């Protein structure tokens, strides 16, 4: 196990290096942030000073290595727009995104696993049909549309803050997190319910479940211990990937609700080609994803010992 984690750790660092390189190269195609645009004419001297200030006058490999060196000290540079430390912008928005992701995952795993197990155990019953129809609807109606409809009809009523929001008005975190979390959770809950139902049905047909029943174990033990644990593998993978994506910033949902997380930060950075912020947000989401991927793999092996680690 130890060597496995060590090896995956080294792999994770490599993934991170390649990913940062990719994002670093790709963002350079976004154009020169200090060039004259439209009516805004920037004198060449000012352009040169700006480039020197942000280190853009150096060759690309030097820039990349400098960036990596600073990254080790969690220094993401200074943003082009407000000339603030990018790390402080991240420190401001990342907790919000983590909160949103965790609340959303909590909602969707709870709904998804319960609904999936019920649907599989009581196959062809009213509940199964209900879960199937609801999950079909939930998967069919995109998060994007749910978000828009919730902003159009629900935001501003009861405890939910009005969108567009004013960030000078402080709102308790649970008030602003609920609508976007619910928006994000719906589709994942539906997918988890389906995955759970499908793998549960498959597991319930297997020999070891028959054996468990033949031994005279109670239905509760058979379902709760034998069947559920073995059906969780696809769910664990799904939740791992989903959490990774959510922690990387639910860019559309955060933008629709103007939720002050890294997704909305990224959306704004892309609008005005704020390269340091773009790179920082993507690097952070990649980092989070790589760590989660490692955790998922370990859990995967724990849940299904047949899968070899080495």
């Amino acid at each position, binding site marked *: 196990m130890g060597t496995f984690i060590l090896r995956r750790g080294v*792999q994770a660092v*490599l*993934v991170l290096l*390649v*990913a940062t390189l*990719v*994002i670093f190269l*790709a*963002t350079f*195609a*976004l154009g020169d942030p200090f060039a004259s645009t439209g009516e805004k004419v920037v004198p060449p001297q000012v352009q040169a000073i700006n480039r020197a200030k942000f280190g853009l006058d150096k060759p690309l490999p030097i820039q990349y290595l400098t960036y990596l060196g600073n990254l080790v000290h969690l220094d993401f540079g200074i943003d082009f727009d407000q000339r603030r430390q990018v790390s402080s912008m991240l420190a401001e928005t990342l907790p919000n995104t983590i909160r949103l992701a965790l609340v959303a995952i909590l909602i969707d795993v709870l709904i998804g696993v319960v609904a999936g197990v019920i649907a599989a155990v009581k*196959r062809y019953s009213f509940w199964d049909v209900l879960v*199937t129809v609801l999950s*079909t*609807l939930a*998967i*069919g*109606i*995109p*998060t*994007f*549309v749910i978000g*828009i*409809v919730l*902003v*159009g009809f629900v*935001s*501003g009523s009861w405890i939910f803050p009005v*969108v567009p929001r004013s960030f000078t008005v402080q709102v308790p975190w649970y008030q602003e997190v609920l609508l976007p979390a619910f928006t994000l959770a719906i589709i994942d809950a539906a997918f988890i319910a389906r995955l759970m139902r*499908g793998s549960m*049905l*498959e597991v*319930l*047909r*297997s020999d070891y479940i*028959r054996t468990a029943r033949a031994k005279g174990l109670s239905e509760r033990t058979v379902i709760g211990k034998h069947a559920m644990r073995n059906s969780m593998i*696809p769910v664990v*993978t799904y939740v791992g*990937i989903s959490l*990774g*994506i959510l922690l*990387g*910033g639910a*860019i*559309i949902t955060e*933008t629709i609700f103007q939720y002050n997380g890294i997704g909305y930060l*990224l*959306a704004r950075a*892309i*609008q005005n080609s704020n390269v340091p912020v*773009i790179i920082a*947000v*993507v690097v952070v*989401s*990649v980092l989070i*994803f*790589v760590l989660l*991927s490692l955790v998922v793999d370990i859990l995967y092996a724990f849940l299904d010992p*047949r*899968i070899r680690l080495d």
Partner: protein
Amino acid sequence: MTHPSRTGDVPAVTGIPVEAALPTAGSQTATTTGPPRHPPGQFKDIWRRYRRNKLAMVGLLIVAILVVTAIIGPYVTPYDAFDQNLLDTTAPPSPQHLLGTDVLGRDMFSALVYGVRLAMIVALSTVALSLVLGVTLGAIAGFHGKASDTAIMRTTDIFLAFPLLVGAIVVVRAAGPGVWPVIVALALFSWATSARLMRGQALALRESEYVEAARSIGAGNRRIIVRHILPNAIAPVFVYAFTSIGVVVVALASLSYLGIGVPPNVPEWGRLISQSVQFLRVPGKTHLWLSPAVAICVTTLAFALVADGLRDALDPKLRGAG
């Protein structure tokens, strides 16, 4: 026991392994499928089971309508979807404009019909591209293991490490606006999931009895992958791919919502919504953002229904149990 190759005159990719035609050892839910018999033509069989699902048939009907609309729609709509009329913006539905006009005075119905075409082209191309990539690489990784597994899985790690939209945004911004950059960007960041699914399946199936049996009678790796692993593993991947058509339709709309991807003057669904954002909470102007939203919903829902029907029709393990 008949070796699969004896009945192997049908394409393996239909997802119905010959093993499934044999009686399943009486489990609780599955009723016996009767004595061994020759399948009555794989596609016919799938279609027979698909047809039984009413919702899936409704989905298929809508998909058919969407596809026909995508092909001939823009030639039969009353207005040009690009024609702006700044003197008649945000008009409510009327006999002249069935669904009213958008914020630029374009006929909403014609704009939505154009949107169907765009969504279909992007979704089908993207999914086809990512499916080919994902299935091939996933099968190789799962079956061969070792170095190829490591190489392919680390590559998926890199691609999966970028959330779909974030990755697509970066690539589209780098490649410039247009339909093809969107297709390539979305495929590039969506093949990895089907590769992982495929690999997981192949990994589990590699240890299964029938693969062992096939190996024991001298079947080569290539044959085992194509004849035994693929048919048994493809169903969830294929269903995933079908479901992801909806994801791509939404991703296209999301990109336009953020103001990148297809050029801003193109009446794309997400663009139609984003230009109406200031009317979100305005009474009487609901049709501005609700009609493109409904168009997205109907499309994704229809494909989700078809994916469902396909899943049930393709899944050999559920055979005879439905």
